[in-house]
Structure formats: structure tokens, C-alpha cells
């Protein structure tokens, strides 16, 4: 079972991706920047957009999911790569401090751990995730999400005055 990698010119491919995404979904914002197709979508339509990207446009690789805490809202970046020079960056903004985003694990199975990590670090819950546990932090007795801006860490010396 070999996978087919996209071929052809980079520009035409980028155009194709942009058109393909535009035609099927109501995008809030879109454009091409260098070798990146930038797309801003509503958080509920993320799985649909990613499904289009994988199934009909043939973008096979989900590189990472970044969550940015904007203090009041979360910005999620899904970086997709087609293995041949083109990138698709799907962005979505979720309001609120306890965000819930639909999962994309059924489309990109590799998102499993990315989403677990995002949940662990930010408390962003992914609806429909098969195994939403913490990745790094303790499973029980730890209620914080370390990368939230509201969690202040001490930048002083560790163990100050303790030795």
C-alpha cells in the first residue's frame, strides 16, 4: 500500500489547495504567503476543513498543533504539510477560558498525542478524543495547566534560601 505524494509545480498546488478549501467551506480568512496557505476557520469546522485537506486534497502530514493562550481566548494552529514543499496553516480562535474543540484524531491519527499535550498544557478539551488523558503531568492531584499565562511560575532561583 503505497501512498501517493503530490506532484507538480508548487504554485499551482498552493492555488489548488486554496481553491479546494475555499470552495467547500466558509473560511473567515485565507491567503497564500510564500509556500504557506493560511486559513482561518471557525473552531467547529476544523475537522471538516482538515478532512477536506486530507481526503480530497491529499495533504497527508499533520506536523503539529500549537495552542496559544491569548488570555481570554485560545488560538490553535494546525500545521499541515503535503511532503513536497507546500504547507497549509489552519488557524482557529476559541473564546473562553475553558475551550472545547472538536477532535481531529479520526482524520489525522497522529493528532492523538498532540491533542493530549494541548489538553495537558492548556486545558483545551477535545470533543470526541478517544483517550484524553494528561501526557506529562500527574494524572490525579494536579489541577493546573502549566502553559496558561495565568499560572505564574517563579523565575527566582529554585530552592532559594533552602539549602
Amino acid at each position, binding site marked *: 500500500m503505497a501512498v501517493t505524494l503530490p506532484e507538480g509545480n508548487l504554485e499551482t498546488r498552493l492555488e489548488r489547495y486554496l481553491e479546494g478549501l475555499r470552495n467547500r467551506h466558509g473560511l473567515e480568512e485565507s491567503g497564500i504567503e510564500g509556500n504557506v496557505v493560511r486559513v482561518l476557520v471557525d473552531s467547529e469546522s476544523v475537522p471538516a476543513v482538515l478532512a477536506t485537506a486530507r481526503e480530497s486534497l491529499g495533504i497527508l502530514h499533520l506536523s503539529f498543533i500549537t495552542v496559544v493562550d491569548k488570555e481570554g481566548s485560545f488560538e490553535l494552529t494546525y500545521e499541515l504539510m503535503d511532503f513536497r514543499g507546500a504547507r497549509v496553516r489552519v488557524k482557529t480562535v476559541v473564546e473562553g477560558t475553558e475551550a472545547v474543540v472538536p477532535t481531529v484524531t479520526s482524520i489525522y491519527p497522529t493528532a492523538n498525542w498532540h491533542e493530549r499535550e494541548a489538553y495537558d498544557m492548556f486545558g483545551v478539551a477535545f470533543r470526541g478524543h478517544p483517550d484524553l488523558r494528561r501526557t506529562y503531568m500527574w494524572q490525579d492531584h494536579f489541577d493546573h495547566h502549566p502553559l496558561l*499565562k495565568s499560572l*505564574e511560575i*517563579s*523565575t*527566582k*532561583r529554585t530552592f*532559594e*534560601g*533552602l*539549602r
Partner: protein
Amino acid sequence: MPQVGQGILKGMGVTLKHLFGQKITRQYPEYKRPLPERSRGMLTVDMDRCIACLQCMRVCPDHCISIEQEKRDADGSGKAKPYAVGFVIDDSRCMYCSLCVEVCPVNCIYHTEEFEAQAYNRLELARQFGERPVDPTIDPKPAVKKKKPAKTAPGKGTKGEGGEAPKKAPKKKEEAA
């Protein structure tokens, strides 16, 4: 399976060759490898040249340098200038990133070839350089303030605090000396 065992025998040939080959162990405590010029060992300070500008203290990501500053007319020019009366480098924190060496305007802090930093007590690793010992357990740097976007960097406007903190009497003078 025509060549069963051939691969194993070939591998055993390689090990047999090495059995009689040149050994590469260095007998460490007796033989010490010459260190290259750029090697980054433990830090040391030339206190005569230090102008107590506190830049190394501020840039240090691990908060391992503490400097106690005082206005003093050290060079006899009749003008009181900042003078480092206490200077401590805590090797138990230092990560040898060399940022302080690069930032020093008078090249008075530099890496030596010394790298054997072992002690029975973590406090013994805090090496004092000034005339007066500084308590290494107290952090002279303020915590990073939460910044607003596009504002000046943390660290600015916090000058002076650095010198004040360690002025409490050092608790463990005997170890500092």
C-alpha cells in the same frame, strides 16, 4: 539457508580483530587530555578589572552570579564609581552557556580550563571572588515581571535591587572563605 552462520562468523572476526587492536581508554586521573582553547570550564573573575556593571548578573539565565555593589573611589580619581565588593559564582547552578562572558564589556569574567567541580556540600560550589563574601542562597535578581506587549524588557528599571538583597549578613561565612 546456504550461508547460515557466515554473518556471525564475520562479526566474530571483527571482534577478534579488536581484541588485539589498539585500546582507546584514557587513564583519566593520571592522564588529562589537553583541552582546546575554546573549552568552557568553570568561570572565574578578574576582580581588578571588574567595573561592577552588573551585566553578567542580569544576563545569566540561571541566576548563578551575585554581585554586591558599592560606590567607592577605587582608582584614586576622586570620583566614586560602582565597585564590586562581593562577587559570587555559584557553580552548582552554572550551565556554562557563556552568555556572561560574551556580555562583559571589560572581559573580566572568563572560562578557565578547570572542570572538576565536586564538593560534599552544594554551598562549597559557590566560589567567592570579592573582598566580602556574598550569600549565594539569596537571589539578587527580581522575578520577571509580566510584561505588556511591546514594552521595555524586564530587567530594566530594576537596577539597584541587585546590590541590596545580599547585604543581609551572610549566614555561612566559614564556607565562603
